[in-house]
């Protein structure tokens, strides 16, 4: 195990822990910069990963760092998307200004939701955000002058400072840039007094209050910040899908975002990105598996004779072509993660790392969480 001795204040202030970490991130950045040359076919999916990464980041600050679980983040995404498209198309504002305005509008909506949230904790908050999301979805459908209603609203490709970002590669770099900016901003906010206050609220509201954290202000700020990020993500998302309709921003999307932070690992920025990679890649993997799995089944049943193999192929084929299968797989993944790895991919990674750095001395109890069996203990 390595111990890091800090010898200068600059080390405390630096964003990265040491030179190794900094070099790792630089290497990652270089890899991402050359990625469009390496896998041009999957570029669209990777761009989606970046946008989902923004969403994950947004929900991570709220759920993972402040402890406020929102079931309505798809609504914020929708508000951001519709606001941006409205500003760009109907008011003909410049792109950057429009995104900023969309983020501001979404942040305002977040604060509006956050205000009643001050009086709620835990499940009540989830239900309230869920209700909010359902109301907003209805608003998207009915407010036709702005949103186009059920007919939907087409979105043009982004144009920044007169430069068109129409092709996939340019849009990839745009999303990458925004994601890096958001990560940098969030990492710094979380190290600031604000971020520490959020974490204090997550761990114990009463303790935070006793230490002088103003719950009302910081919770509202968390909501506003999270919603604002979601607004930016929504603007990019609008360009990504190219066509807005109310039935995109459903509760299922909100649940996917939650899946993202849970699978990635609550309480880590890495987790948000891992979760985004996971959630964006699962549909791709599923669609690939849809073609591959029946053949495997046929191979497995091969020794039983030809009719058995053909039968297995058809049965499995019919099963995997069911349209309802995908949400079920998402649900299954969610359940398995909650049961077996509540800390998510990031937690698993941290455990593996610790195992090797402590090599013969690793013990499982390091990560065991205390369980609360009393009602009063579960209140925070």
């Amino acid at each position, binding site marked *: 195990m390595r111990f890091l001795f800090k010898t200068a204040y600059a080390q405390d202030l630096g964003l990265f822990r040491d030179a190794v970490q900094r070099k790792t991130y630089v290497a990652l950045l270089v890899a991402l910069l050359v990625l469009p040359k390496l896998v041009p076919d999957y570029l669209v999916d990777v761009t989606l990963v970046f946008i989902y990464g923004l969403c994950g980041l947004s929900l991570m600050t709220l759920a993972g760092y402040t402890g406020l679980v929102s079931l309505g983040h798809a609504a914020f995404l929708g508000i951001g998307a519709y606001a941006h498209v409205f500003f760009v198309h109907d008011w003909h504002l410049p792109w950057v200004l429009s995104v900023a305005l969309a983020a501001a509008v979404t942040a305002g909506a977040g604060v509006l939701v956050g205000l009643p949230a001050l009086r709620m904790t835990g499940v*009540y908050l989830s239900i309230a955000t869920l*209700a909010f999301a359902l109301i907003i979805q209805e608003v998207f459908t009915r407010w036709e002058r702005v949103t186009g209603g059920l007919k939907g609203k087409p979105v043009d490709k982004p144009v920044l400072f007169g430069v068109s970002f129409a092709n996939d590669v340019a849009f990839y770099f745009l999303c990458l840039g925004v994601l890096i900016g958001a990560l940098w901003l969030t990492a710094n906010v979380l190290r600031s007094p604000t971020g520490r206050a959020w974490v204090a609220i997550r761990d114990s509201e009463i303790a935070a209050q006793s230490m002088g954290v103003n719950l009302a202000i910081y919770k509202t700020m968390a909501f506003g910040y999270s919603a604002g990020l979601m607004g930016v993500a929504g603007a990019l998302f609008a360009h990504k899908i190219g066509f807005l309709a109310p039935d995109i921003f459903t509760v299922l999307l909100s649940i996917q975002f939650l899946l993202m932070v849970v699978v990635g690992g609550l309480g880590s920025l890495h987790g948000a990105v891992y979760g985004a990679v996971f959630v964006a890649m699962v549909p791709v993997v599923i669609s690939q598996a849809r073609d591959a799995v029946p053949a495997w089944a046929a191979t497995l049943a091969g020794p039983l004779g030809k009719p058995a193999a053909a039968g297995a192929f058809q049965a499995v084929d019919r099963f995997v072509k069911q349209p309802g299968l995908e949400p079920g797989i998402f*649900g*299954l993944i*969610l359940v398995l993660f909650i049961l077996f790895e509540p800390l998510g991919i990031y937690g698993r990674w941290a455990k593996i790392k610790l195992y090797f750095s402590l090599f013969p001395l690793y013990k499982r109890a390091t990560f065991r969480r205390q369980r609360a069996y009393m009602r009063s203990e579960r209140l925070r």
Partner: protein
Amino acid sequence: MLIYKATELVNFAQGDLMMLGAFTCYMFVVWYGLGYWIAFALAMLLVALFGAALDAAVLRRVIGQPQFAVVMLTIGLGAIFRSAASITWGSEIYTLPTPFSAKATRLAGVTVSHEYVAIIAGTVALCAALYAFFTYTRVGVAMQAASQNQLAAYYMGIPVKRMFSLIWAISAGVAAIAGVLLAPVSLIDINLGFIGLKAFAAAVLGGFGSIPGALVGGVTIGLIELLSGAYLPQGFKDVAAYVVLLVVLAVRPQGMFGTVGRKKV
């Protein structure tokens, strides 16, 4: 229609259990040609058993973990149920034939169809039964104890694990009843479960953990929906319940009959 909560467990899969109940009943009635009442009882029993099995297999593992884990778990389970139902029964919409279908009575100048009468009667009977069960029977009180403080309940000799399984069984059974009662009114399809979200509005309005509160809340939500459908522009009917829910949560989060819990240090 009502979701009842006497435990600390908040079940986002409740609506999907309702859907399962309705589908099971439909299957017995239409595919196997059983009588309505037999199918009703069978569906309730099956779903209740399913609930108990679910607890034993999955939910028991998260006891003692933060509420967030339970919420996420039930959301995940709900998604699995919906997907399983769409694979088993397809995504068509079914209607459930019942003994009350297409009959109506004129009562004090208002036409009331028998389906609604059945729903109201069923709900009231169910609430009364549940209320009595939780207040007067040993098992009911033991359940309340188990939900208040699992450790203390365990020390007092209450088999907490079995209690939790039983709670889930009852909860799933009630969901099945609600699903079957609702089926003739709202048709059966895999999204029946989303109506369960409105039940949350009812439960919150009445106050979580209060059975009479849930009943009053359910009736209030139903009335508000009907009235907003009649007097407000189109579109308000669908969201009225959620608007009320938000307002209630903002103004009086503990609901009409709820209790306020705060950790004492």
